[in-house]
Structures are given as C-alpha cells and as structure tokens.
C-alpha cells in the first residue's frame, strides 16, 4: 500500500481534470447535437482534428498569439460544424434515425482525408510559448498550461450557458430539444437551430483540438475517432442529451483515465474508457445523473430497413456471375486476381455483417473485431503446430463462440446504443489484443503465420488462393440464403421489425440474436483467418475501425440483409478503388463519399434490403 500512496496523486488529479475538461468540451457538443438532432455525430472527432490544424496554421505558420488563435479556431470549427449539418444532416430530412449517424461517419472520413492531403499523415509539433513557472501544491504542481486549458474550457462552458439561457436562439434550441414538432409549430426554424447547434459544437470541438495540441505539443491527424469516442463515453456517463451531465461525464472520464494510467500503465488508457462505456450502457443507460426511471428510448429496431422488395436475380444469372468470377485468373493479370481475392474476403465479411445488421437489425460498427478474433485464433493455433485446415475451422468456431459472448451485452440495447455498444466491444477486443502481450505478442504483432496449405495442397499462390476465397463466398452465401428461407429467417426479421411483438409470440429474441451472431461469427472468423494466412503478419490494427466502417458501407450499398447485394457491393467498394490508382490513394475520401451519397440517394442499397 505504501507504494500506491506514494504516487503523485495530486499531479494525476490535475492532469485528470485538465484532460477531463477537454473531454467535456467534446462531450458538450455531442450532447447538444444529440439533444436537438437525436443523433451521435461521428464526425465530431474530425472537427477536433480540423481545430488542431487551424490552430497550427494560426499559431505556428502565421505566428499569431494565443488570444487571437482561439477565436479563429472556434470560427473554423463552427464553419465546419455548420457545413456538416448542411451537407450530411439536412438533406436526409429524418428518413430514418440511424441514417444520419451513418452519414456523419462518411463526413468524418472525408474531413480526415482532407486534413491528410493538406498536412500529411505525420504528427506535427504545436509549440505555444508559455511562461515557465509552476505553482507547487503539496507534493505536486500546477503549470500555466493546465490553468490555460481549464480556464478556456470554463469560459467556453459559460459562453454556452449564456447562449442557451440568455438568447432567443438558445431558447429555440432548448425548445427543439424538448419537442421538435411543438417547436416547429411555434414557428421555430428547425434548420437554423440545427445549424446553430452543429456550429457551436464544432467551435467547442475545434477549441478542444487546439488545447490538446498545446498540452502535448503535438497534433496528429489520426486521432479523430479516438477523441470522438472519448466524448461519446462522456455523454453516456452524463446522460446523452444532458449538457451539464456531459461536462461532469468528461471530467469523470478524465479522472478515471488518469488514475487508471497511474495504477496500470498508459497502454490501458482507452481500455478504461470503453469498459466504463459498456458498463454504463448496461447498468445505467440513462446516465449517472438521471433522476430515477426516465422515459424509455423509443424502439428503433427496423427503422433503417426501408420497406422495399429486394431484387431477386434469377438463378442462371447468379450461376453465370460465379462462372465469370471463376475465370478472372485466366485473364493473366495477377494484380487483378489479388485485388479480387481481397474483395471477396470483404464479401465474406459483408455476408456475415448483412445477417447481423440487415436481417436482425443490429447495426454493428465493430465487425472488424470478429475478423481479428478469427485471424489471431488461426494464426496462434497454426504457429503452435495445428494444420492450417484445422486452424481455419477452429478459428471460425472460436469466433462464433467468443463473438457471440462478447456481443451478448449489446443484444439488449437498441438503435444508437447498439452502434455505440458494438463500437465499444470492437475497440475493447483490439485493446485486449494490444495489451495481452503474453498471448498476442502485443504491439509487435504476430509474424510467420503459415501460408495457406490445405491437406498438402497449395492455396497460397495467387490463383488457388483466389479460387479458395471465391469458393468460400459461394458456399457461405448459399448456406446463409438457405437459413434465411427457414424458420430462422422469418424469426430474425420479425425480431428486427418489432422485438416486443416477437417476444409476445414466444420468440426468445436474445437466443435468436445469438444464433445469428454465431453463424455470422463463424463466417467472419473464417474470413479473418484466411486473411491472416495470406498476410503472414497481423497486429492489433490490421482489422480496425476503418475496416468495420468499410464492411458496413458494403452492406448498406448491397442492401441491408441482401446476400447477393453484399457480394456485388464488396467487389465495387473493395475491388474497384484498387484498380484505379487515384481512388486507392484517396481511399478514405472514396469510402466516405460513397457512404454519404448512399445514405442520401439510395438508402435501400443497390439490390434492395431484405
């Protein structure tokens, strides 16, 4: 105990409050947006990054002092925020409640890519001259940076309070958050309110980006999603649309992280955040500060699957398509064959996600976790001596079991919470892989994964490997189609349409969600395992959030729940960009734009949702 007591707790508290006030700035914006627009703005992290780089331009490139930099950063962030509302939210006109969330993911990817193009992928220093003194307090100390960040955050919060409670527009914002329809009837311009809220959130997020840059003297274009997730955790702690709660949630998260790092080490930082997130969703989904039993969130199951009849291509056309695909290696272009192999691996993953997100209605943003589990399982087992064929099957079975068990807590969540919960589960899997060094070799990754040799037959050179993957896609597409035509198909879709009604007719929804996850986990685990043997090297970041978003984009493009659509879309999304150099270079831009345009113009996907 002595050693724990002797840690510099005061310093940890100070850094917890400082980081926490930055999280609070992020969270306040997310909470405001959740209040009026009822969505989680996944582009909010990109605004943070934009803020950091606008700050760099002002403070370093132009050499402006801090007092001039902060308002300019706020202005830049405000403009970007308003732009997000104008481009991604307004045109959707509330067609469904999960749609704008997906659109903001698209915008976030586009903004990140723009920052990459303009400033490069490497971190930069953000030196801001600060006085060198520190105030000693007990064993610890407080420096001018700490005070600057804290004071800036407090001023921003005070300005927000004044806006919400002292201006007419602020009153309109509060009215809209309470009851949008009533506000509209009273003549409130909802578009103006939405745009104002996105602009304010953008300004606060951008200031947060600047402050983090100053605090660490570094800005990095790759932190958008991480910081957005922190803000999200904070609002889940504080109670989604609760603005003061978001501030409290941010500070609490900052302190938890700071103390957690003190006790367990820095690499556990994010693990704490997501563990807290998952715990909150399960135990107190209305937030720490909720008074008793609050209004239950409206059920959102099935709201994304638009009422439509899927296109059913005739059997001969499908057979013809498979035959044509089988002939691809005969074109004599190894690069094309490799690209198509990769595309069909995505197809396999997309088939599994379209079952979960489309047929059952659990829109998951953590699907890459299933691929990662399959990849690591097969890699570690075969390195330990298991034949590759057995390794693949074992990996698929392990993924089915482990994936279902991990996703189980998300089964009772609905709508946006499913998206948040699956995202958290996906990140937790990635962080466990990173930190469980004795099993996974940690950040070093796993080397020397045996090549694909099944029963002594070579499946690792370009053409056999292609045919193997194509064969898996055909087999699993057929199996899944057969399941969909059984009692399981209608039971899954009934759960998606109306879980309460399904339960009333004796359907155990958690059990059937589990069955879907089990089958999808088997498929996805296999896809991950095959990928691992092809790459021969994997690490915790091989299957990341971008992979999850990409698979989800494929699934939406193909039509939620549509097996054939998932395969066609995988070829288009994962195959096409690689064939054109420009598209491959700006891949994220392409994915983001594809997602945004899809949600806007063809939410039912190419072949219709099932």
């Amino acid at each position, binding site marked *: 105990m002595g050693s724990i007591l002797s840690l510099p707790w005061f310093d940890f508290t100070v850094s917890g409050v400082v980081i926490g006030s930055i999280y609070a700035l992020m969270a306040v914006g997310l909470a405001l947006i959740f209040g009026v627009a009822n969505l989680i703005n996944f582009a909010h992290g990109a605004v943070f990054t934009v803020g950091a780089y606008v700050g760099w331009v002002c403070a370093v490139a132009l050499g402006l002092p801090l007092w001039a930099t902060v308002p300019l950063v706020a202005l830049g962030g405000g403009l970007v925020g308003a732009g997000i509302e104008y481009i991604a939210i307004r045109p959707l006109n509330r067609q469904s409640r999960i749609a704008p969330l997906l659109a903001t993911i698209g915008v976030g990817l586009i903004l990140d890519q723009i920052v990459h193009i303009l400033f490069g992928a490497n971190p930069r220093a953000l030196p801001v001259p600060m006085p060198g003194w520190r105030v000693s307090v007990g064993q610890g100390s407080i420096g001018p940076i700490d005070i600057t960040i804290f004071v800036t955050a407090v001023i921003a919060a005070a300005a927000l309070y004044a806006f919400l409670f002292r201006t007419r527009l602020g009153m309109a914002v509060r009215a809209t958050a309470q009851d949008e329809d009533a506000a509209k009837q009273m003549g409130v311009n909802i578009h103006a309110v939405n745009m104002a809220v996105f602009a304010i959130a953008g300004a606060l997020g951008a200031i947060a980006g600047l402050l983090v840059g100053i605090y660490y003297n570094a800005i990095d274009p790759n932190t958008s999603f991480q910081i957005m997730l922190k803000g999200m955790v904070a609002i889940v702690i504080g109670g989604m649309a609760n603005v003061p709660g978001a501030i409290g949630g941010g500070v609490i998260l900052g302190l938890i992280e700071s103390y957690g790092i003190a006790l367990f080490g820095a690499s556990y930082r994010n693990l704490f955040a997501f563990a807290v997130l998952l715990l909150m969703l399960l135990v107190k989904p209305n937030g720490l500060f909720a008074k008793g039993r609050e209004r239950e969130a409206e059920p959102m199951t099935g709201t994304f699957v638009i*009422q439509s009849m899927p296109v059913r291509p005739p059997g001969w056309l499908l057979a013809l398509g498979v035959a044509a695909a089988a002939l691809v290696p005969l074109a004599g272009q190894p690069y094309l064959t490799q690209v198509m192999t990769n595309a069909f691996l995505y197809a396999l993953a997309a088939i599994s996600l379209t079952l979960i997100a489309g047929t059952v209605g659990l829109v998951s943003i953590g699907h890459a976790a299933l691929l990662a589990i399959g990849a690591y399982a097969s890699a570690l087992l075969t390195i330990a001596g298991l034949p590759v064929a057995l390794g693949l099957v074992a990996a698929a079975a392990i993924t089915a079991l482990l994936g279902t068990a991990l996703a189980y807590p998300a089964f009772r969540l609905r709508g946006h919470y499913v998206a948040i919960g699956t995202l958290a589960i996906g990140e937790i899997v990635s962080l466990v892989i990173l930190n469980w060094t004795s099993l996974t070799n940690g950040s070093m990754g796993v080397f020397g994964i045996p090549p694909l040799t099944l029963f002594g037959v070579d499946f690792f050179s370009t053409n056999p490997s292609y045919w193997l993957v194509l064969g898996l896609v055909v087999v699993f597409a057929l199996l899944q189609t057969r399941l969909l035509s059984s009692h399981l198909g209608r039971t899954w879709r009934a759960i998606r349409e109306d879980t309460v009604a399904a339960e009333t007719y004796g359907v155990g929804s958690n059990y059937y969600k589990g069955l879907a996850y089990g089958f999808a986990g088997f498929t996805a685990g296999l896809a991950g395992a095959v990928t691992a043997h092809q790459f021969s090297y994997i690490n915790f970041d091989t299957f990341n959030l971008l992979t999850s978003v990409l698979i989800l984009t494929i699934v939406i493009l193909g039509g939620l729940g549509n097996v054939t659509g998932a395969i066609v879309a995988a070829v288009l999304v994962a195959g096409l960009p690689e064939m054109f150099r420009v598209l491959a270079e700006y891949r994220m831009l392409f994915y983001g734009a594809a997602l945004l345009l899809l949600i806007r113009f063809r939410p039912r996907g190419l072949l219709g949702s099932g």
Partner: protein
Amino acid sequence: MSSGALLSATGVTRRFGGIIAVDGVDLHVREGEFLSVIGPNGAGKTTLFNLISGQDRMDEGRVMLEGRDITNLSPRRMAEAGVARTFQHGRVFGNLSVMDNVLIGCHTRLRAARPRVPVVAPVLEILRALIRPASVRAEEAAMREEVRAIVATFGERLTPRLDEPTYALSYANRRRVEIARALALHPRILILDEPTAGMNESETVEMRDIVDALKRQGRTILLIEHKLDMVMRLSDRVMAMDNGRVIAEGTPAAVRDDPKVIEAYLGHATIGGGEPAEASLMPGTSRAAGGVQ
C-alpha cells in the same frame, strides 16, 4: 379463487410513481367465456391487460392459468403458456409477408425445427435449418397449410395477399393479420385490445363479425373495447373499470344500466342528462361507435 376459472387474476395492482393505475383488480374468465372490459380512457384497461399478458410487471397480485401460476412471467413464457394477445395500435411485422407474420404465431409450437436438447440446441437448430430433415419439412408444410386455413376464415380479404408484405395492406387487413397470428398460437385464452380502434363503421361491423365467429368457435376471449355496441352484442359478461378499479361487473344489460358506469362515462349519474348520452350507451344506434373515443 373462483372454481372453474380458466384464467383468474386476483388483487392485481400497478403503481406508476404516486398514481395507482390498476388498484386491486380481480378478474376471472371461465373456459369458453367471453369477458369484456370497458371503461373511459385512462381507466387502466390496457395496463391491466399488459399485466396479465406479461408486457408489464405488477406490483401486487397473482394470475393463474389452468391452476398454474403465471404471475409476472415474461411475454415469451406467457405465449408458451397459451396466452395470445393483439395490440391496441396493431403491431404486425411490416416487412414480413402475411404468411410469415402468421407463421411467427406458430413459433411456440415448432418441435422439429427447434430442438430442446440442452447446450447444443443452438448448433442443432442451425444445422436442422440448413439440412432440413423430413420431419422439419413436414412440420413447416403443416404449419403453412394451417396458416392458409386460418387466413381463409377471413374470407377473400387476405388469401390473395398471403405473399405480400403487410406494410402494403390496409389498416383493417393488418388487424386481421394480427388476429390470425394470435390464433396460430393455439391460445388457451385470446386477449383482444381494442380490435376496432381506428376503424370506420363498415370495418367495425366486419371486425365484430370476425370476433363473433371466434366466440362461436368456443374460444375463451378477453376483450377491451370502447365501442359498446360490439361489447353488448358479444359479451357473456362485462366488467367496467374507472380510475383503476372495477366499478361494475355482470351481464351486459346490468352493467349498461349501472348508474356508476353511466357516471364514469358521462360525468353524471342519471341518464336523463341528455338525449345523446342515452343514445351513446344503447346498442344498435348510429351513435354507438363514437361516444367515448
């Protein structure tokens, strides 16, 4: 507990904060009986039905079905026990065909497709759905045949639309699908929550004939209904609620003439208060449909 009751609920109480929505209600239904619960909006009728069918948990009370305690079972267990209900605003599965909607009603009766073996049941259920042994195929075919028969009892309304998604159906047809789905469960007791809500006069008459047909099949039925015309014609017994309590119970005629019931509906105890008031409680008049909506 009254002897011979198929379903008996005693002392059912549900509080929401300080409000007692259902206050010590007793309700007994005999096999083959048609019991209606009436009462003004907010009387606690739907809350009572939600408690009996497991949608909500009661704070106090007990529900027995055929001598078995089913108090506060989950909706799923209620369905397995043989309680089927429809919803006030209709809850069909919009993207599912009429056939699939009604087949969900058969879910509790699936035997071959849903193995009950512990631990490996999930794997077996998937494998059987993939392989489809003869037993599974025969069961599915039998269920589909039965669904066609149930749907055929609604005349020519639904049969031609068996493979259409229900979002494309008219409101009245969706209500029919819901009742068909409930019948597919082979319920011991059928709970109908305002089956004619939102229907026009001719649809209401049609729905009344459907419910009448169900009654004549000898089914045990518990009905919530605002339209007293239907209640008076079909019920063996009527229970009137107000402010969460039972204020009258007995034959339709006796409950209709009970001053407490009239007061609850109209706000004053004598029928002489006005001609429209009297008319609205009398069956068979054109006003019967509207009165309390």
